[in-house]
């Protein structure tokens, strides 16, 4: 399985000076937080939150992640620069989106200087070079070894989501959805893009990845816009149209808030059986190693999922002021917890025949991995089998 063409292997670096309590954050079994009814411990507040940063190192020659029985893994492409999301075109060509994070906003607090340093350990795989581009992988005989690896689209602005409707290819940059002409077999786009609609971007652009999917009939685009903070510490005015899934009319570019209170929604995908829109969401940090579970959920039109006022339904977050009991009363819990701090960034439903039959009818979720707990969580791809009527069951690691 080549869902993660990652070039990095993570080793562990104890966040030494931050690991004051002997590297034991009192976290429980992450499996107790997988499923429809995760156990939620009491909220904790810290002088220094538990941290454990996985440092980036390269893969050794021939080294791969391990996969479960019946699957095989090999690198489909190497030499990529910060690959962050994938999109498969109808002819089987794979687009690898290689974004750079947008320019950081002006420092607001001394904490940001320290956090910037710590985060640079987790992401600095050296110079990412000329990224902010999309690479095309063309594999004509399907052996997992592309005969062509070339730049498909370049000079983008922190791109993440891609969606194709007919001959219109949409790229969700961090600040706009841009439309390009695409025809079957194209291996490079040189035409200038046309902005369909601007999206909430800088100058503060905390969660900058814009996940994108087109509705099955092609009339609408859905875009995930993450919050502009962990928990409103950049001020409420920075959160306009954020922590939302926006529904964009493809003909006019006008958008409306489809669903709200989703802190950082990614992996937008339509579930093939029910036709419902699903997303994976990165929940809030710094209230404990087992809070708040990240989750996957079907997304209902007009629904509010709590952020920032509450989590997992109506558990009030005391860090948000002013309180909004009226909104907390409306907050609904998501469908399925993936456990805390796993940082799901991608999700795909398996509708193809290439994998063993047991992987039919379910979703693969790519988990970027935790920083806000001592015992690492995530850093893997999990499979969540869907039972009839979109009821989800215990996921398998894969």
């Amino acid at each position, binding site marked *: 399985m080549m869902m993660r063409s990652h070039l990095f292997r993570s080793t562990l670096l104890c966040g030494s000076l931050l690991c004051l309590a002997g590297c034991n954050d009192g976290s429980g079994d992450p499996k107790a937080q997988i499923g429809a009814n995760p156990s939620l411990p009491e909220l904790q*507040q*810290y*002088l*220094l939150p538990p941290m454990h940063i996985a440092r980036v190192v390269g893969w050794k020659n021939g080294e791969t992640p391990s996969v479960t029985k019946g699957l095989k893994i090999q690198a489909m492409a190497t030499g990529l620069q910060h690959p962050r999301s994938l999109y498969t075109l109808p002819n089987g060509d794979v687009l690898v989106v290689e974004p750079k994070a947008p320019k950081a906003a002006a420092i*607001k*607090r*001394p*904490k940001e200087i*320290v956090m910037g340093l710590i985060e640079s350990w987790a992401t600095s795989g050296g110079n990412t070079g000329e990224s902010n581009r999309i690479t095309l992988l063309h594999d004509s005989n399907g052996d997992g070894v592309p005969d062509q690896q070339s730049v498909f689209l370049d000079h983008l602005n922190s791109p993440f989501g891609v969606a194709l409707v007919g001959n219109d290819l949409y790229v969700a940059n961090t600040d706009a959805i841009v439309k390009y002409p695409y025809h079957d077999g194209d291996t490079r786009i040189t035409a200038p893009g046309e902005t369909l609609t601007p999206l909430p971007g800088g100058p503060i652009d905390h969660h900058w990845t814009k996940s994108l999917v087109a509705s099955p009939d092609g009339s609408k685009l859905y875009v995930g816009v993450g919050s502009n*903070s*962990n*928990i*409103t*510490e*950049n*001020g409420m005015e920075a959160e306009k149209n954020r922590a939302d899934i926006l529904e964009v009319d493809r003909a006019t570019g006008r958008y409306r808030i489809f669903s709200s209170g989703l802190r950082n929604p990614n992996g937008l995908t339509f579930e093939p059986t029910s036709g419902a829109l699903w997303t994976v969401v990165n929940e809030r940090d*710094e209230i404990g190693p087992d809070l708040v579970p990240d989750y996957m959920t079907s997304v209902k039109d007009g629904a509010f999922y709590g952020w920032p006022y509450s989590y997992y339904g109506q558990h009030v977050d*005391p*860090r*948000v*002021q*002013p309180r909004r009991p009226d909104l907390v009363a409306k907050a609904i819990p998501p469908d399925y917890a993936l456990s805390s701090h796993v940082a799901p960034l991608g999700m795909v439903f398996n509708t193809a025949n290439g994998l063993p039959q047991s992987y039919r009818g379910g979703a693969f979720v790519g988990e970027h991995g935790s920083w806000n707990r001592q015992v690492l969580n995530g850093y893997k791809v999990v499979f969540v089998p869907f039972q009839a009527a979109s009821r989800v069951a215990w996921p398998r690691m894969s």
Partner: protein
Amino acid sequence: MTSLPYEERPHSTAQIAHHPLHPMLVPVPIVCLIGALLTDIMYCVTAEMMWADFSAWLLVVGVIVGVLAAIAGLIDLLSSPAIRSLTPAWPHALGNVVVLVLAFFNALIHTRDAWTSVVPTGLILSIITVLILPVTGWLGWAMVYRHGVGVVR
């Protein structure tokens, strides 16, 4: 008290051309920590993050310059038996160590995100800190204005 001749006054060791460093540095933490209480109060009243951000900066600068002032003061204290024998010397030093420790933990509390970076723990620590400051300040001033520590003429 009658003024002592220069030779009999306690001397400052951490000084530049007879200008003691400690009294030059102490206004910075005093102003920063009092300022942090004021901006904490403003944040409590408004819930506007700008005020909490101000508090975080004031506490960090207050602690950093406060540590420098403490080092200068400690050098004066430890290198002069005359200073150590003054009644206000140790209460002044220990009181301000308490201030710095409280301000350090307060700075950590202020690294939390949003409301609970101030309310209630941060605000309480800011209040206690500012309540200690006039006492230790009074003792410090007594050492200069009454006992002539570091005074040349």
